[in-house]
């Protein structure tokens, strides 16, 4: 029956959203800790400004409150898929650079990578519920990482982690919007515009 399906889909969506919110919260907390470890182990200045790096999904968004539910899910999914690849790359570079010498950073990176993967899967599930289905992963291989000096790679890593921390907060907010009774998947749900 359509009505029963709607109810069970709504319940499933609410359940996925609240679990997703908890996942995102834990992920953010771990990324913030990882940032501290990363800055320390890589000998960086925590307040260093990092220019926007190519290939790193930027969390900043205009008119966030006007996004539809589907838009939110698609943008989140694209971002976390990119982070999954970036973190895997960082892990590889880190192992090359430091070998087995520093496992703390390696373990922390691996733990966050695992959470990013789990969250990506979670987003794919939510998109399936939207009866839209997640888009397939990029067909062609992403372009190889540009050749950067060791220092540039460290700074890039800092940029990746900082954006990921912002994304984790944004995702929490996005999922809360989605969990609302009428998230407006086909029309924009906007907040009152009064200053």
């Amino acid at each position, binding site marked *: 029956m359509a009505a029963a399906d709607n109810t069970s889909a709504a319940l499933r969506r609410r359940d996925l959203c609240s679990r997703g919110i908890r996942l995102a919260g834990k992920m*953010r907390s771990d990324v913030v800790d990882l940032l501290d470890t990363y800055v320390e182990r890589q000998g960086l200045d925590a307040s260093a400004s990092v220019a926007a790096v190519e290939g790193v999904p930027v969390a900043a*968004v205009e008119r966030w*409150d006007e996004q539809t539910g589907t838009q939110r899910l698609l943008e989140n999914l694209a971002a976390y898929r990119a982070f999954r690849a970036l973190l895997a790359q960082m892990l590889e570079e880190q192992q090359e650079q430091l070998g087995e010498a520093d496992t703390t950073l390696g373990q922390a990176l691996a733990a966050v990578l695992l959470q990013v993967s789990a969250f990506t899967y979670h987003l794919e599930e939510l998109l399936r519920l939207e009866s839209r289905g997640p888009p397939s992963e990029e067909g062609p291989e992403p372009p190889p990482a540009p050749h950067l000096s060791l220092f540039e790679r460290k700074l890039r890593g800092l940029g990746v982690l*900082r954006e990921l921390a*912002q994304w984790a907060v944004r995702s929490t*907010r996005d999922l*809360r*919007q989605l969990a*609302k009774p009428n998230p407006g998947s086909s029309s924009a749900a906007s907040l009152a515009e009064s200053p």
Partner: protein
Amino acid sequence: DSHIQYERVGADVTMKCGSMDWDAAVTWTVNGTDIDASHLNGSYLILKKVDLTQSGQYSCYEGSSWHLKYQTYLRVGTPPKEPLLMCRSNNYPKGFYCSWHLPTPTYIPNSFNISVIHGTREMVCEKDVFPKNRCHIRYLQLFSTVKYKVTLTVTNALGKNSTTATFDEFAIVKPDPPESVVAKPVPNNPRRLEVSWQNPSSWPDPESFPLKFFLRYRPLILDQWQHVELSDGTSHTITDAYAGKEYIIQVAAKDNDIGTWSDWSVAVHATPWTEEPKHLTTEAQVTETTSASTSSFMPPPTTKICDKGAVVGSGAVAVCWTAGLVLAAYGILFI
């Protein structure tokens, strides 16, 4: 023609009487009062190391004709010190405001100019009508890692100064304290207090941007606070209150994910429910029946003094006891 002249505290000021020659005979006045000739050098008025009290209207009159030759309004003040600037978002995600003030007054008019830069973009900070040392900005982007840079410049006739604040979008988020905090005793529960509050009205969307809360409470007689952090809901029942003791309770709020805690709310006071002292009522009834049969003296009913509404804390219980004993003694005397 009169005009305004601004001078620094401690400066030496020389005023010329318009186009009059140095050796012309003139009279200077300040706020209508003649100035002693000892302050004159020819027709020039010399004021050494001026202080704030010397602000006023200075006029120069030609000696014999008393024609007004020159007039100026002297305002003594100081150039501005570095202003104090504070930016905060109490209405996330709508925007934030910046407010400022000078650490010490300048005693002369100041003008303020504020610039807000986000990356390469210059943003407009709309000045508030009241208070006037405040302006607000609407967020154009959310979740940005790019810092905001706010520069405030204060200028007056004697100089200028400025200060800059740089911050992240998340760092300045600080809600207003919770509102309408209410604490009530729970009937038949001598160790409980029910506390409830509301989200601050300035927080625009508590559903999408929920707040978490921090409750603190202590009996008035102790200095140590008890703390409870609550991740949702706008009420809490304290279950470990000391019986009969008056409590002071406050609540603070914070966005669930970012920023800092609000200031503490207005404090509320409450005392847990206490049982009505039944044994005193029985004694008074016995006393009343006895004295009624032997004399016209009628002790006032004990229950009035020990009315539960008036009881606050353990002190009042002692009063009830004493009143009961005194009345019992009187009753016995009259038998």
